[in-house]
């Protein structure tokens, strides 16, 4: 049992929910990270500036975390570099094709009782679980 980790996880989750809810209430926008990153890298008209600012906020938060909570930023990449590259490609392509990632579907979509997001989230968690089983069979961590 790891109650401290889970309690902090719930508090972290509330912070994520608060950030997404504040963005929704103040601007009407959805805090879906893959969609936000998509708007930035494609230089989306009208939406570019706030999306870039959000990504910079995430990055600044990461830099802050390295100093404030270094033990939570100590994780290593679990796979070899070519496999990490492949995983990144799949995550980028898949989240855009499916219209959202863990934040867009998993938090904001489910948080709006959107059936599409509930089904999407169940799908990527189920496929993720199967992938973990296969990765172990092949000999990964």
């Amino acid at each position, binding site marked *: 049992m790891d109650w401290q980790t889970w309690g902090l996880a719930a508090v972290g989750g509330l912070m994520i929910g608060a950030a997404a809810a504040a963005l929704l209430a103040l601007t009407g926008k959805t805090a879906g990270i893959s969609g936000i990153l998509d708007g930035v890298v494609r230089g989306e008209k009208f939406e570019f500036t706030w999306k870039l600012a959000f990504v910079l906020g*995430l990055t600044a938060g990461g830099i802050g975390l390295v100093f404030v909570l270094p033990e939570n930023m100590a994780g290593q990449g679990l796979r070899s570099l070519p496999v990490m590259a492949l995983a990144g490609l799949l995550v980028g392509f898949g989240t855009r094709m499916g219209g959202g990632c863990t934040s867009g579907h998993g938090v904001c979509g489910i948080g709006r009782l959107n059936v599409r997001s509930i089904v999407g989230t169940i*799908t990527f968690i189920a496929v993720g679980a199967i992938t973990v089983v296969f990765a172990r069979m092949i000999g990964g961590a």
Partner: protein
Amino acid sequence: MAKPLIGFLCGLLFAFGLGLAQMTEPTRVIGFLDFFGDWDPTLMFVMGGAIAFYLPVWYLLRGRKAVVGGDIIPKKLVSNLDKRLFIGAGIFGVGWGIAGVCPGPGIVLLARAQVDFILFVACMIAGILLHSLLMNPKASKQVAAATA
């Protein structure tokens, strides 16, 4: 200038939430997906906490005007289930299950300045651009015009 400032601060809070919840630790994410092994429920608490905050706020404000910019806070969206959803979420699930990193933590982990996470995010951006090239002819024309 209000919208970018709001975006920045929300991104900052989002990142701190991810960090406090240890979603920046790929083994935690892989542990959650490992239903058939030594299951780690941490991610469930994170998602549960986030939805617990977001859902009532959305429910109370849906259909109203946002504070800045005049956008309407979306009501229930059209929730059609199509092939793109299942195939896209499936492809994402494979990548997520391999690396234990999704887009939010990926960007936050750039702060570690480590080659594996930088490579992951660079390839994630490549995947996003590849998708817009293959799936959206209008966007691909824009890219073609920009690179010509």
